[in-house]
């Protein structure tokens, strides 16, 4: 493990970096990989046992923890984190328990998802091939983030390693399926984004008034089946947007 200079490119992993004045980020790899993702999820669960931590979360490849640096100095917290890191090989951790496979009806392209053709072009394929590729991909929730209940899903085939846009799209609607860097994000809110809007679903992922405000969990898997705009229209009254799911294994 290492505490390399902030943002060092030749760092070794796991890598501990500061986040603002009251956070540490433990990263398990230089780029998205399944072992790093599993490590981040498992390490977050293990941090529950460490004193002085006020909140934790995961990103794709990292575990974040927030603490009060006036109560626990950075050096002390770093020592506690390092002590936990050496207890095992976190990249060998299992995925979380209770995972599910979701099938989520999705309209690709049309005026509901106006950037399909553009995204297909950047990925070097026809719009038709793009729909076929995206609707057949089985992707996993790697983390929940950006907005409440909102999943980052991956990994898509290599061809979808496309950059974000230069400029932000001012607004994409709730239920939008967007793509960049071999990942999909299914938007839980109406928001600006730098990712390209390729599909539209009718699924509500954040339900603050319900007993389960956040529908998806890290480790869940999803297939975004292609449907017509007419079919999706009929699913709009259903908060699940026509989605179905089953337990995995």
């Amino acid at each position, binding site marked *: 493990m290492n505490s390399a200079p*902030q943002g060092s490119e030749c760092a070794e992993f796991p890598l501990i970096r500061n986040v603002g004045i009251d956070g540490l980020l433990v990263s398990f790899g230089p*780029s998205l990989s399944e072992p790093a993702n599993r490590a981040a999820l498992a390490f977050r669960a293990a941090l529950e046992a460490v004193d002085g931590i006020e*909140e934790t979360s995961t990103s794709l490849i990292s575990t974040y923890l927030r603490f009060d640096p*006036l109560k626990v100095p950075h050096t002390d917290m770093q020592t506690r984190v390092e002590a936990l890191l050496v207890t095992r090989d976190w990249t060998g951790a299992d995925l979380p328990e209770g995972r599910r496979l979701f099938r989520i009806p999705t309209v690709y392209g049309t005026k509901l998802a106006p950037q399909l053709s553009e995204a297909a072009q950047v990925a070097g394929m026809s719009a038709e091939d793009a729909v076929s590729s995206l609707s057949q991909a089985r992707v996993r929730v790697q983390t929940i983030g950006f*907005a409440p209940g909102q999943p980052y899903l991956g990994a898509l085939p290599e061809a979808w*390693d496309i950059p974000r*846009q230069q400029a932000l799209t001012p607004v994409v609607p709730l239920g939008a399926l967007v793509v960049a860097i071999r990942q999909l994000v299914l938007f839980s809110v109406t928001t600006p984004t730098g990712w390209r809007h390729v599909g539209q679903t009718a699924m509500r992922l954040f339900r603050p008034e319900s007993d389960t405000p956040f529908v998806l969990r890290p480790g869940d898997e999803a297939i975004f089946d292609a449907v017509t705009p007419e079919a999706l229209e009929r699913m709009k009254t259903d908060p699940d947007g026509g989605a179905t799911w089953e337990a995995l294994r």
Partner: protein
Amino acid sequence: MTRALSVISAGPSVTVQDLGRTGFLAFGLSRGGAVDRLAIAEGAALLGQPVTHAALEMAGMGAVFEAHEDLRIALTGAPMRAQIDGQPLVWHASHLLPKGARLSIGPAISGVYGYLHLGGGIDSPRLLGAPSAHLTAGLGKAIKAGDTLPLAADDATRVGQVLDVADRFSGGTLRVVPSLQTGLFAQEQRDLFGSSSFVRDTRGNRMGVRMACDGPGFAVEGGLNVVSEVIVPGDIQVTGDGTPFVLLAESQTTGGYPRIGTVLPCDLPLAGQAPAGARIGFRFVDLAEAIDLERKFRLHIEGVPRQLEPLIRDPALMRDLMSYNFISGVTDGKTEA
């Protein structure tokens, strides 16, 4: 009858706010709460009540209210034109709002976010543990004409207090600590960032504010392909066109645009309160200095109740007090006393 305040009319972005909700980062929900957390502490001190009480945050424009019974109020944050039944009110101060009286709060004179605190606090329903609205997440709604705000019981009586508040409503220098992605930016980019002058853009909300600058902007090699990482309030995100955004209370919890640093919590009120057109600069400090500044900031917040001064209520002095307030954005109770 339940204590309440009626909303006669309201600006476009008036919301119930407090110190936000923690514990939901892992689910993608940022803390939210008031953009100017110092203003929340000042309101609590003026009314002698806990800092956890919810208040109304008014972005740029206030609202008109009518009291159902005698209420204690305090006004903090961005100074706004305020009157009770036509009588001007001193900002950064507590007042009695008599039963049936009409409280009118107009546009901000400087700054962006003004706060109306009520004795006992606003007792609106809690969602995920807090009453504060998080409109980006779809939690709660903006206040509108016809709404009635329920208030919790208030057993205190003291009003007529004023705070001498340093100007944080017209831009200035934001101190920045290096963060996880600062090293992605070349040293000359960081130096340029620290020496450039920025203008708070018209684009800004509770998620974040755009800080425009002349010149080519800032970039990192391969910046559009960086793996999405954790975001905290204060992070300075550089989007594809090279312009920095300072992220605020309702920021996203993760994001892919690289971040050049993180504004210190003690300077976030200034960042959020800078009105469109205000000059903004950034200055890097090291972690040790940042922690020291955080310690001082918390001591300052703890000390706010001890800085209360009696408000001169002589109407003949009111106009002078008001004009002083308008010019400096600061009401100095001591001068008038």
